[in-house]
């Protein structure tokens, strides 16, 4: 008798939870995003809710979930019902297409600019006065320099960091694959802490005082300096870095089930609007819109950028060579 009662309780509970999300579905969006976009989407969600209210009269509530990019994609694949995903790299959204079959394979062609409404790059955050004299990637592999970066296995930002370093070494006058591998190997020998996400690394560097230099998203570095004291940290932009394109997409299976496609698509398109681009710029992302980008040009240092496609042949290939089990990163890590 008790068992029946128990199952009934569980069933009722499950149904209530299921039902409550169904009735709210019209006006709720869940944006599953990566670590450093918290502040960006806090601002953007408020702006979009207002815009949508004016446009359609509908009140939209946007819920956020943040975490390491891989972890977030994993949750979506496992059934976290995200209406839109805004992740750190295309590979993680590819995984949602491939393993979860929740979106079409060609998702990246659906929105302009590789579905990346804003870009960023990889820079260095150092302590005030730059005591170790860090100017470029070469300074990070010197003995005695302690470098903080997250774990490339779990963090999207960390993969961009890794690839930026690799690309730099490769593009040196005498650079080749073997030298790049040796360079990156030396770099990771200087890493005392590998957090699972970009945010964890920033906290380690800033709050715990570990390391001489933090390799970070440009937006994360600027934000950290703003939030935690411009008098304590300096940003160093290397001579060469990677163009990081954090992509966005609607999750088709979810929005079609919930009937939220219209508002979800409007949400992403609003990212490309002047207002959206402005908010991205304010939060230290590089806007795509040339006019708005010009307004914020003064904020960012000039840096030569290469893309993942031209150096690594795209994310799928980069992931396979470098980050899969037994890949180059694993081989480097084991040599530790």
């Amino acid at each position, binding site marked *: 008798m008790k068992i029946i009662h128990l199952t009934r309780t569980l069933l009722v509970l499950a149904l209530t*939870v299921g039902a409550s999300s169904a009735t709210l579905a019209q006006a709720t969006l869940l944006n599953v995003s990566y670590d450093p976009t918290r502040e960006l989407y806090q601002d953007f969600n408020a702006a979009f809710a207002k815009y949508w209210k004016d446009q359609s009269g509908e009140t939209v509530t946007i819920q956020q979930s943040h975490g390491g990019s891989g972890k977030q994609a994993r949750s979506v694949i496992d059934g976290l019902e995200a209406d839109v995903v805004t992740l750190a790299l295309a590979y993680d959204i590819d995984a949602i297409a491939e393993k979860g079959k929740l979106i079409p394979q060609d998702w990246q062609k659906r929105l302009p600019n590789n579905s990346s409404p804003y870009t960023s790059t990889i820079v260095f955050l150092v302590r005030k006065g730059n005591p170790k004299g860090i100017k470029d990637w070469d300074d990070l592999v010197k003995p005695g320099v302690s470098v903080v970066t997250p774990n490339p296995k779990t963090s999207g930002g960390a993969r961009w960091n890794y690839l930026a370093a690799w690309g730099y070494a490769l593009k040196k006058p005498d650079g080749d694959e073997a030298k790049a591998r040796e360079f990156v190997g030396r770099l990771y020998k200087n890493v005392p802490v590998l957090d699972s996400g970009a945010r964890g690394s920033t906290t380690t560097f800033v709050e715990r005082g570990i390391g001489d230099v933090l390799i970070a998203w440009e937006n994360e570095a600027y934000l950290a300096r703003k939030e935690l004291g411009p008098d304590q940290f300096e940003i160093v932009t290397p001579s060469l870095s990677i163009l990081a394109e954090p992509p966005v997409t609607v999750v088709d299976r979810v929005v079609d089930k919930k009937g939220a496609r219209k508002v979800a698509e409007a949400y992403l398109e609003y990212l490309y609007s002047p207002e959206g681009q402005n908010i991205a710029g304010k939060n230290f992302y590089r806007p795509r819109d040339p006019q708005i980008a010009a307004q914020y040009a003064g904020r960012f240092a000039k840096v030569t950028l290469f893309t993942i496609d031209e150096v690594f042949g795209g994310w799928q290939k980069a992931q396979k060579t470098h980050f899969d089990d037994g890949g180059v990163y694993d081989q480097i890590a084991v040599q530790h």
Partner: protein
Amino acid sequence: MGAAVATPWTARARRFEENVATREPAWVKGVLITIALAFFGLFLLLPLMTVFAEAFRKGWQVYFAALVEPDALSAIALTLLVAAIAVPLNLVFGVAAAWAIAKFDFRGKQLLTTLIDLPFSVSPVIAGLMFVLLFGMQGWFGPWLMAHDVKIIFAVPGLVLATIFVTFPFVARELIPLMEAQGREEEEAAIVLGASGWQTFWRVTLPNVKWGLLYGVILCNARAMGEFGAVSVVSGHIRGRTNTLPLQVEILYNEYNFAAAFAVASLLALLALLTLVIKSLVEWRGRQPLNAGEESQGVPA
């Protein structure tokens, strides 16, 4: 009352301290107490104090602002809800298991006891993983659940399941030895005298084990409210919806909001302290009648 509480304790230790055969030289005693207290300070007191010190570093206002913030409030509500479902279920299970194991003999009893202890030694991470394998979209029941619009993981049921698993043995573990020690004679007498099974349970068994039961429940509750690893895997981390208090601590910590993170953490630390206070009371109440007799005999006045 205060004196009454203290008597068995001091008296008990004094029994050893006054006996030549069971006492050590004063310097040994001093050294041992110092070691114990140093270890205590370093490993227990200091972390506890740190939580509160960090929470109040920016003052009372920041502290309370962090606690009444909507996301924090919904984390509190969710944590309470999860515990309110998980703890009673484990309570009923604990009583049933203890009744079967302590009051009856059957084959495989030892194995059953061991199996009940299992979740205790399973890593919380694996606990979370199991439910992902079962109820995730890539798992066995995921597609079916999705088709029928029933959410388990990344929703309250998943959090509840993970919590039930992690706190599974607590009540049973507490009750089984207690009920075994109490034997079966009283219950058997009640039955022989014509009481029904339920009457026997409510009037005879329960009063005998109520303190142990209470202890098991509060320990279960503390773990339920504080579980991190297992719920972290199945939560989905949706702000204001599937974040429990420990996850909220992590989120705030990751937003450079250290004072707020420690403020929420201090709530959990307070809960831990409250648990310990109740536990001490329970232990004292549970021991009292036994001690009184023992002490009056053992210690010549």
